[in-house]
């Protein structure tokens, strides 16, 4: 006969605040009652099966960010946002435009959010089509929280603002033309090489035995003066340092691989070692000359000539090497910059084509309004701001003309007057 207490006891057993005496009592009963024991096992079994649930990743969604930005973004953020796309003109007009009616409609279980404009759905379709046309979705991890590739906001009377984060921007830090290291604008090739040498390599000439106070009666005075005039550090060192800099720029501009770079570094190091060796010998020579006043002038002069010749040879080798690397690094940089500009031009072209062909979904945008497209991180770098955005403001009237075949996408791009900010 089944146990009559099972249900009552096991239900109580589940309580959060079960008293320990109760617990002990129930457990005692369960230990003695096969019915209750079996039932408890079943309940545990069910709970265990439920507990096997494996968390599923959340599909990508907007997180109501667009809604949030329209309804809650405070004045300061609103300003910052505006600042991005309208740096100078018409800022004062903008204040009142953020006040937009928002309504939320529930329709048959699905949810539609309207920002007080009648074509919100169209904007969604439009940005979707744009993302596709620009190939933005393909490389993105669908569960990456930062993968919000196009963010759209609509400002009544002004138009649609799209922030586009392309894959190009992600790679931009590597591809962006080097501004700071650029051999064209750096101090590297200016007249004063010692300025950049100072921190890099200690000046060796100054550590050589005091040549400035040579005894006027010293028999080898002329030789010593000549020796002191042999370039031991500045020009050779300068060339070596420049070679190293250009090799680095060459590598950073994807001009050479890491193996080739290592080989260049070895060559440069070999030059530096040779230079040090000649410097050492020159130092010894001078030291010997000072002490050994009896040495024959002719043989000493020949040795000095030899040393000077070696040093000169070393110097021209280093300078040639530096010049060659400079030339290679400049052309690598030029082609890197060209690739970068081509990529951007290509993106702009696709953008314009997409605007023209997908326009059908945005015909409701009033003709006097604009579509502002912010290409995040793709603007021209400046020394002050290495990362800027590239901004296009397309007039809806131009877009319509393009859609109707009156102008081509390239003209549309031109008329959008792109600028970096």
């Amino acid at each position: 006969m089944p146990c009559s207490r099972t249900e009552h006891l096991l239900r109580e057993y589940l309580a959060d605040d079960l008293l320990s005496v109760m617990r002990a009592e129930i457990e005692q009963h369960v230990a003695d009652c096969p019915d209750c024991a079996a039932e408890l096992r079943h309940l545990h079994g069910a709970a265990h099966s439920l507990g096997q649930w494996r968390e599923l990743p959340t599909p990508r969604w907007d997180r109501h960010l667009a809604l949030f930005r329209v309804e809650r973004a405070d004045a300061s953020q609103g300003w910052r946002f505006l600042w991005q796309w309208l740096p100078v003109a018409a800022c004062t007009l903008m204040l009142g435009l953020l006040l937009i009616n928002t309504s939320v409609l529930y329709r048959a279980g699905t949810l539609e959010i309207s920002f007080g404009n009648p074509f919100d759905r169209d904007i969604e379709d439009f940005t979707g089509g744009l993302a596709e046309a620009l190939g933005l979705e393909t490389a993105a991890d669908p569960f990456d929280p930062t993968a919000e590739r196009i963010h759209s906001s609509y400002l009544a009377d002004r138009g649609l603002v799209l922030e586009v984060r392309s894959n190009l921007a992600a790679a931009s830090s590597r591809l962006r033309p080097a501004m700071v290291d650029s051999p064209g604008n750096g101090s590297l090739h200016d007249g004063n090489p010692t300025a950049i040498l100072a921190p890099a390599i200690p000046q060796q000439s100054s550590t050589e035995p005091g040549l400035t106070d040579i005894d006027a009666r010293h028999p080898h005075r002329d030789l010593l003066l000549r020796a002191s005039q042999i370039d031991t550090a500045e020009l050779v060192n300068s060339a070596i340092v420049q070679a190293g800099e250009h090799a680095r720029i060459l590598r950073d501009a994807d001009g050479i691989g890491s193996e080739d770079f290592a080989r260049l570094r070895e060559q440069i190091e070999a030059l530096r070692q040779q230079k040090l060796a000649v410097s050492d010998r020159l130092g010894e020579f001078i030291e010997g000359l000072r002490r050994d006043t009896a040495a024959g002038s002719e043989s000493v002069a020949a040795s000095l000539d030899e040393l000077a010749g070696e040093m000169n040879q070393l110097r021209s080798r280093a300078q040639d090497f530096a010049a060659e690397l400079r030339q290679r690094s400049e052309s690598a940089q030029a082609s890197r910059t060209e690739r970068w500009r081509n990529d951007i031009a290509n993106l702009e072209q696709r953008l314009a084509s997409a605007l023209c062909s997908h326009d059908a979904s945005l015909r409701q945008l009033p003709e006097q309004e604009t579509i502002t497209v912010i290409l995040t991180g793709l603007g021209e770098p400046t020394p002050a701001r290495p990362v800027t955005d590239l901004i296009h403001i397309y007039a809806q009237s131009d877009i319509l003309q393009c859609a109707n075949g009156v102008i081509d996408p390239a003209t549309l791009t031109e008329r959008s007057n792109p600028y970096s900010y």
Partner: protein
Amino acid sequence: MSKSDEQLVAGALAGSARAWRQLVERHESRIYNLGYRLMGNSEDAMDLTQEVFLGVFRSLQRFRGEANFRTWLFRIAHNKAVDLNRKKKLLSLTGGLDENGGYDGLESSLRARPATEPDHDLAALQSNRQALELLSRVPLEQRLVVELKIYQSLTFEEIAQMQEISVNTAKTRFYAALKKMRFAPEEEHALLEN
């Protein structure tokens, strides 16, 4: 150090989209999975997730740290799940769909779903399908108690408050649900033999 939910709510109220985003990101997976278990498929789970966070957004101001944020979130989720379920039922009725057996469409939703979904690996799918099968045996109000108790570790007192029932009724619902989810003797045999 990451900010507390309460700090993020305050940030969102002050207009920080970043705070709002962080808040949603922190909890969306919990709500999405809750929705999946209650509704049985990804689409409805996502609908529920969006509605829950819309509800949170709409009533941010009313959340003054009175309860903890999670409990508050679950209350909204609970109510939205009931709403959504009612709407779906209504739709299926007006659409003339006759659902024999199965509660609230969860069972039919399971049946309608093919055995594979591209996103998830098979092991997760099997254990999840088994859990869904068990959950589909009970009506929504019981399923909600199971959800809040087993997956969200709320107390019966908290659950009772949400459902506006007594603590005893909450316990009874939970017990009744688990009882319906226990394996039938033949199923148990099958399990043991496999």
